[in-house]
């Protein structure tokens, strides 16, 4: 089972002595090979590509307008002309579900990127430098994490007018703390490791060490969290819809549609199925992809 792993590691360690160009290329192709080996990861990747296609070509793929209301048919179940039926105010669910991919992907990916960027930089800097830098950054992180997110969100909802952009930014700047904390913890133990010591002894400057050695080494755990995170954020988008901070109607979003399905859950249960399934599938795809990527990119296999 797991015994193949050390071999791979040993192999990759040997490449350190190759020249840079070759090293990078071979690294990439090796990563790709490793990634391909993990079938579920490939499947996740394919699903995500399909989702992206769905989002980009939504106007072509959707049979009806996602916002057109036909109250006379509200709550109607699936039929040939409307394969997923109508929602609680009489809109075509299939069309809304297809368009919903746009919001889900944008919110999930962009805000995760924002959060990772802030979180990794703050965490790595804090963990690497220690001392007062660590104290200050950790205190900021702690303060953010100690804060009930809800107060922040309700306030932000009141101060800014909610929109897709607000949702993305708000999520991005509020969830980075968990990345920072985990990265810092990892860096704390990494810092004492040989290769960082060696780099420092070789006279590499701090920024270079952080970017070249420390950050790549903590990406593994970050990817694990980020893949979960994208799912979490897609669910959080549903939460924000309740909060009034969500994407505003009539823009279709899975989270919003799922939460409006809640009140109809006993009489029109079909309303909750499509957006719910899409959320589950998307989250699953991102997680599987993440697992695959981790195998492929894990820095400890690259050193």
């Amino acid at each position, binding site marked *: *089972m797991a015994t193949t792993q050390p071999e791979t590691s040993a192999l990759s360690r040997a490449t350190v002595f190759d020249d840079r160009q070759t090293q990078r290329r071979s690294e990439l192709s090796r990563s790709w090979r490793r990634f391909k080996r993990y079938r579920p990861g490939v499947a996740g990747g394919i699903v995500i590509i399909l989702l992206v296609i769905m989002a980009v070509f939504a106007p072509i793929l959707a049979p009806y307008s996602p916002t057109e209301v036909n109250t006379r048919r509200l709550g109607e179940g699936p039929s040939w002309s409307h394969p997923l039926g109508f929602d609680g105010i009489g809109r075509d669910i299939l069309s809304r579900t297809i368009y919903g991919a746009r919001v889900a992907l944008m919110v999930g990916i962009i805000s995760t990127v924002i959060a990772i960027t802030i979180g990794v930089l703050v965490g790595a800097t804090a963990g690497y430098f*220690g001392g007062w830098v660590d104290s200050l950054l950790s*205190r900021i992180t702690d303060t953010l994490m100690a804060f009930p997110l809800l107060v922040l969100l*309700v306030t932000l909802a009141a101060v800014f007018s909610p929109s897709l952009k607000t949702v993305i930014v708000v999520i991005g700047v509020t969830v980075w703390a968990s990345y920072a904390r985990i990265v810092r913890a990892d860096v704390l133990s990494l810092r*004492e490791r040989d290769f960082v010591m060696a780099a420092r002894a070789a006279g590499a400057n701090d920024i270079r060490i952080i970017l070249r050695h420390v950050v790549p080494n903590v990406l593994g755990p970050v990817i694990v969290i980020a893949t979960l995170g994208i799912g979490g954020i897609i669910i959080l988008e549903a939460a924000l819809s309740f909060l009034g901070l969500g994407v505003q109607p009539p823009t279709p979003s899975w989270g919003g549609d799922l939460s409006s399905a809640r009140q109809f859950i006993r009489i029109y249960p079909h309303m909750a199925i499509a957006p719910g399934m899409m959320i589950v599938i998307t989250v699953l795809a991102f997680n599987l992809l993440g697992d695959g990527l981790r195998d492929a990119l894990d820095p400890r296999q690259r050193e």
Partner: protein
Amino acid sequence: MIRRLLQGIVVIFFVSIATFGILQLAPGSPIDVMVGEAQVTQEQIALIEAKWGLDKPWYVQYFRWMGNMLKGDFGQSIVRTGVPVSTMLRDAASVTIRLNLIALVISTAIAVPVGIIAAVKRNSLFDYVASIGSTIGIALPSFWISLMLIILFSLKLGWLPASGSQSWKNYIMPVMVLALQETALVARLARGSTLEILRQDFVTTARSKGLMERVVVSRHVVRNAMLPVVTVIGLRLAFLMSGTIIVETIFAWPGVGRLFIDSIFRLDYQVIQAIVLLSSIIVVVMNILTDLAYAYIDPRIRVR
């Protein structure tokens, strides 16, 4: 350690000021909710505001509140009269903690072994099932599961009461929902970190020394893999204070999460502030404990 404590106090101080500042930004006044449809005049609204000190500038309100807090007086809720905020919090916290501790214990007991086994038996059927199962567990919106459970167990089968907190039967559904998510999350993390550890040199070394796989796993891997898991569990404990709002709302458990959300919508400052402050204290304490746990598990880290 004393330094850590001092740092914690600084964080709490920052949180308290930030809370106050942000609440000031939030428009609206609890008076409007209190008054409802009563025929009132603007003067009368002003009078009620004066009674509650809401007409004072925020820093005046802040220092008055902070002073009381230091004396251990959390004040009175503007909405729920006649009960000190401390009593409200104590009642709500006992509910939330009861519910969440049970869920946390159950989920940790399931999730940690599952995660480790999944990692050790990587790419096996067990691993796939556990991975996909945990992903679905995370991805399912909890309000949806909760309502489905109620429809199934209360309405169709009639086995369990739909809400309330009086008997042990009331615990089953909310704990199921909470534990499902918790288990999914912790299992994923346990698997992820075990995989990391399995690849590290000292494990390879241990293996090459000819140690039996079981010994390697139990002696080296489990211990190290616990690092991120401890972090997560620590964070979850800390978040108990801001509660598990969905579950508390659907199953009608009067916990901290619901108290908090109700208070936000009524802008019940005293309650919001008390919850924020206490939860920040807990988070700080948990952070310190987590660091200690790290040091214990991974001796390479020295606690400064």
